[in-house]
């Protein structure tokens, strides 16, 4: 059976059309989908004038001053919004984030407690947001100093707290000291803002970061969708073609000749399974490497999970191709069936349209497709970054393995019934 697989692989690699269909077509589709889903080019974006939705819940002189100061930043253009509207926009993906000045901003400023400023964002847009965050640090760090009286007052309040009530004389002395101290610090900051950068960040990082939409790490879901979805759909097409090779052998009479040989007839099917699995693994690997080279998908942090997922995906998909071939009577039948089944499975399984934008009942139906389990598995790896030992991830591996094994068993039965009969 290894001779058979070896022969098939040899034929496969000399068949230019098969090579194009297996590698070039999926690569093209992945590229198109990647652009369509907007999963690429993020890192290269420069922040132009960024429309920043800002929600002012404090509505004090101080919060307004701070917002006005933000607006002067070259990178940021403030758009005032209501909280509900902004959160809605982020959730729908219309906006990346919203900056909220909570009630008590002015007081906190006054008392020197952490500033109730919060950036709520969509984690999928983390790169955009982190760039913005940097701009915000710088500007917001300067807020306490933007009004010298204000800042001086703040400092004195701090000292008052330290000294405690009752000792008015000490307080007056400290105030006098701190006033002169503040003057010199303030001068220093104005003269050379960089030297006080540590102070700035300390204050700037008071911005509370809240994920409104949970997401990936560095790999954008659009890219994962494009790669995993397309790769699995195309894989199903190519395994169907490999399976159809079995019917070619029947039609060409070579199957009969294989049966003359002393090997067990089942080995013919096993040979095809080996071929289908080898080509599947190769195809998936090439697709992920392509996604890495072309779009910067990070595969290197997840090698063991990825390898495991590729292997079981290849196994499940291969068994599908072999099964199809064992059911059909002619190559034409396989082609007809496979196109129909692959398209339907890809559609409901989320190869074409991401599953999470589908209505709930569709998401439930999706579990009958190979595509669903594989794509979710790849999301587990790249987006949810589940560890290899995570039960959700392992469940998907198991499901794919069970799908593959049961389809193979059925294929073996059908092979004996349909293919061997007519030889």
């Amino acid at each position, binding site marked *: 059976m290894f*001779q058979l697989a070896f*022969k098939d692989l*040899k*034929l496969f690699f*000399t*068949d230019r059309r098969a090579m194009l269909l297996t590698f070039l077509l999926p690569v093209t589709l992945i590229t198109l989908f990647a652009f369509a889903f907007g999963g690429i080019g993020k890192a290269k974006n420069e922040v132009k004038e960024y429309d920043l939705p800002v929600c002012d819940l404090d509505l004090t002189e101080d919060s307004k001053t701070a917002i006005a100061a933000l607006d002067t930043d070259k990178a940021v253009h403030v758009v005032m919004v209501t909280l509900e509207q902004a959160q809605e926009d982020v959730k729908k993906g219309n906006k990346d984030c919203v900056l909220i000045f909570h009630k008590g901003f002015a007081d906190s400023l006054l008392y020197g407690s952490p500033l109730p400023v919060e950036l709520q964002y969509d984690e999928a847009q983390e790169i955009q947001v982190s760039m913005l965050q940097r701009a915000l640090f710088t500007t917001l760090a300067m807020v306490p100093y933007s009004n010298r009286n204000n800042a001086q007052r703040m400092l004195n309040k701090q000292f008052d707290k330290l000294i405690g009530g009752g000792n008015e004389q000490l307080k007056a002395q400290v105030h006098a000291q701190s006033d002169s101290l503040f003057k010199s610090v303030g001068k220093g900051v104005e003269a050379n803002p960089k030297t006080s950068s540590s102070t700035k960040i300390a204050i700037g990082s008071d911005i509370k970061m809240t994920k409104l939409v949970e997401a990936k790490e560095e790999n954008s879901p659009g890219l994962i969708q494009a790669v995993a979805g397309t790769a699995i759909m195309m894989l199903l097409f190519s395994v169907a073609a490999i399976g159809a090779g079995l019917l070619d052998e029947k039609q*060409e*009479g*070579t199957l*009969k*000749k*294989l*049966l*003359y*040989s*002393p*090997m*067990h007839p089942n080995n013919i099917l096993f040979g095809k399974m080996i071929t289908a699995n080898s080509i599947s693994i190769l195809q998936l690997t090439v697709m992920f490497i392509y996604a890495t080279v072309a779009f910067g998908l990070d595969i290197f942090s997840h090698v063991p999970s990825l390898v495991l997922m590729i292997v079981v995906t290849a196994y499940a998909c291969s068994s599908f191709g072999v099964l199809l071939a064992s059911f059909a009577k002619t190559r034409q039948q396989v082609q007809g069936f496979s196109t129909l089944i692959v398209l339907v499975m890809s559609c409901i399984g989320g190869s074409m349209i991401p599953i999470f934008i589908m209505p709930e009942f569709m998401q439930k139906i999706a579990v009958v497709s190979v595509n669903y389990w594989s794509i979710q598995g790849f999301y587990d790896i790249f987006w949810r970054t589940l560890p290899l030992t995570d039960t959700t991830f392992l469940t998907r591996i198991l499901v794919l393995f069970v799908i593959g094994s049961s389809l193979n068993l059925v294929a073996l039965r059908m092979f004996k019934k349909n293919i061997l009969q007519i*030889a």
Partner: protein
Amino acid sequence: MITVSNLKKEYGTVQALKGISFSIAEGEFYGLLGPNGAGKTTTISIMSTILEPTAGEVNIAGYDLRTNPIECKKTIGVVPQEIALYNDMSAQDNLLFWGSLYGVSKGELIKRIDEILHLFGLHERKNDKVKTYSGGMKRRINIASALLHQPKVLFMDEPTVGIDPQSRNLIFEVVEKLHQSGMTIVYTTHYMEEAERFCNRIGVIDSGQIIAQGTLDELRKSSSIKETIAIAFANLTDELFQKISLAWPEVKRFDQTIHFFTSNSKNDLAKIILNSNELGLDIVNIEIMKVNLETIFLSLTGKQLRD
């Protein structure tokens, strides 16, 4: 070497084999002669273990086909009726692949392939893809691929159908060489010339039954027909042929020539000439031929081997 007893095969309601029995000795060249649809391929397929018989037994080299198919398969080489090769691979690669299925070691195989390619006159083209080959060349490779494991028994199912005369002669030579080297050969054909030329023994098969069996001489002797008188006429019409065939039931018309099948040509010739004169037929040529397989088949079935 081979015993086939009471072999039956039904395809639904079609009775392809109605109980066939024959046995073949080691080193024998056995011919299965019969027209299309007689059941030759069905017989070969069952003997090659790829088709399950409805009833009957086959024993090859001491192994029962049902209980020990793998040993049987190792003993035999099969040349199927249809050319079955991988067109996108070279002849050499095809042979390497087919040979590897029989567990021939790679070194041995390469040596064998080299010999066989020389034998079949295809050594120069061995690296060309099979799809660039002519029909005759493909047939030769098709045969070669069954010989790589040096089988004791070779089954050949109509190996010369649709082939150029040059390839045909080459195949004949190879087949004769194989026979001389002691290989047992089962050869099916619907060409009586081939059966007459090669076969030690012939089984005549029609409609799933063996209707006569033996050496060529035995078959000739057992036939009620001894000779064929072939007379060519100048003015044969349908009407006149009608009249002739009333008087002589065992005749066959080929254009202006009538074949009269007879067991006593000396007697019959005079009568035929007399009869022709009465009908006003002008004789152009007379030929008396010894009985051949074609006429034997005709006398047995009333049909011709080829239509």
